């Protein structure tokens, strides 16, 4: 019987929750990587490892790896540096295994790659050699590379997202990168939209495609059907254009989930203090508000960009965590919800994996 594993990154380490296929009773383990703030923790299905993007206030940034579902952990930042003449690398924000390598997105925005399961790292320098780099400005969360989307088949292709900078794509293994922000609004910019300067919050590749992407941006939700070359806004009836997360269905490219929040000037909370996940089943043409089982009174939740996960069971489970420490789960694609942990440290990331028993 398969088991479901959640990797929850918090301000105080990684927590691991696991359950059976019914997804009713969850065992909680942790914290792991104690003393480190975790911005992302993900499962590598190729070898069963867990990777965590970690930063300690004392010891700085590192990527942790557990080869045995949390029993033991190692860590390294060997090579996670811009060098003595470069800017100080202050945080690791994202980690993504792909095609036998592991990638890490960092602050200030840049991409690193490990070919030895996180033991050593090297800078994918081509991204910061993009001619727009001198214009990159930090968003509220910093100048951060938070999203890494590998191509499903081609190890030389990849998309990345950096807040207040935008989406970039490489087709040559990271040697060169092209901005992919056409069609995305920049309401904070008084002039016409810039090629670079788009505030992407999260990016996800639709299942079974190599060109349909969903994006939650500071200024709306978007879909691209041409690998990011152009974007069409699909904000539609959502309760707010602002939010951080976007989750995608493991098999249906038309299904995705977002969680709208009030705009920054109104606090980045769930609108009306009534949390709801919104689901599209038609590629963003329409949205459905899903709140059964979620608190609907005085619930001022803030859900950050890495804090939604989707499992791959036949009826996918959807999960999200709040900065106030609540973790919510749905075993029916968002139709109904349960709180499965109430008082974790501030949650920054949620990833879901299905483990064969």
């Amino acid at each position: 019987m398969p088991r479901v594993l959640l990797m929850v990154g918090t301000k105080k380490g990684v927590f691991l929750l696991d359950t059976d296929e019914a997804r009713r009773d969850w065992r909680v383990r942790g914290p792991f990587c104690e003393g480190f703030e975790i911005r992302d923790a993900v499962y590598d299905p190729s070898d069963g490892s867990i990777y965590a993007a970690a930063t300690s206030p004392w010891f700085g940034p590192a990527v942790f790896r557990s080869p045995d579902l949390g029993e033991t952990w190692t860590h390294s930042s060997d090579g996670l540096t811009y060098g003595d003449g470069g800017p100080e690398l202050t945080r690791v924000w994202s980690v993504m295994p792909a095609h036998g390598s592991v990638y890490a997105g960092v602050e200030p925005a840049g991409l690193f790659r490990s070919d030895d399961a996180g033991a050593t790292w090297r800078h994918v320098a081509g991204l910061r050699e993009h001619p727009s780099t001198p214009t990159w400005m930090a968003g509220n969360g910093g100048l951060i590379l938070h999203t890494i989307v590998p191509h499903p088949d081609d190890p030389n292709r990849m998309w990345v997202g950096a807040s207040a900078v935008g989406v970039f794509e490489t087709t040559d293994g990271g040697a060169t990168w092209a901005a992919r922000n056409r069609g995305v609004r920049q309401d904070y910019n008084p002039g016409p939209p810039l090629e670079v300067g788009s505030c992407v919050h999260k990016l996800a590749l639709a299942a079974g495609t190599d060109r349909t992407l969903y994006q939650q941006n500071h200024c709306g939700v978007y879909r691209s059907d041409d690998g990011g070359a152009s974007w069409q806004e699909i904000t539609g009836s959502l309760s707010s254009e602002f939010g951080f997360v976007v989750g995608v269905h493991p098999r249906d490219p038309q299904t995705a989930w977002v969680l709208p929040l009030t705009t920054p000037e109104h606090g980045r909370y769930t609108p009306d203090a009534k949390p709801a996940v919104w689901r599209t089943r038609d590629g963003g043409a329409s949205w459905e508000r899903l709140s059964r089982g979620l608190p609907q009174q005085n619930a001022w939740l803030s859900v950050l960009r890495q804090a939604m996960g989707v499992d791959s069971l036949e009826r996918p489970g959807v999960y999200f965590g709040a900065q106030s420490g609540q973790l919510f789960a749905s075993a029916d694609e968002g139709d109904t919800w349960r709180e499965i942990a109430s008082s974790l440290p501030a949650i920054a990331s949620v990833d879901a994996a299905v483990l064969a028993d």
Partner: protein
Amino acid sequence: MAEVRLPGALTTLFPGTPRRLALPGATVGDVLAALDREAPGMRDRLVVAGPAIREHIRVFVDGEPAGLDSPVAAGSTVDVVLAVSGG
């Protein structure tokens, strides 16, 4: 050789590394390089690019605040201390 004393939160990250070690080096930087040979990766936990000691790490040589260039004499005590920080 200097006696180097490390915080438990640091040695926990490097299982098997003792809290006290005798290490060679004419400066704090040299001693931390020797420390990295004993526990590969430990220097990264204490030093940022520049190089400089991390913002929330303090190093003392014989009780005096020290930087990477501070001299270390034979028989000196080098204390690595976590600054009061966090939240």
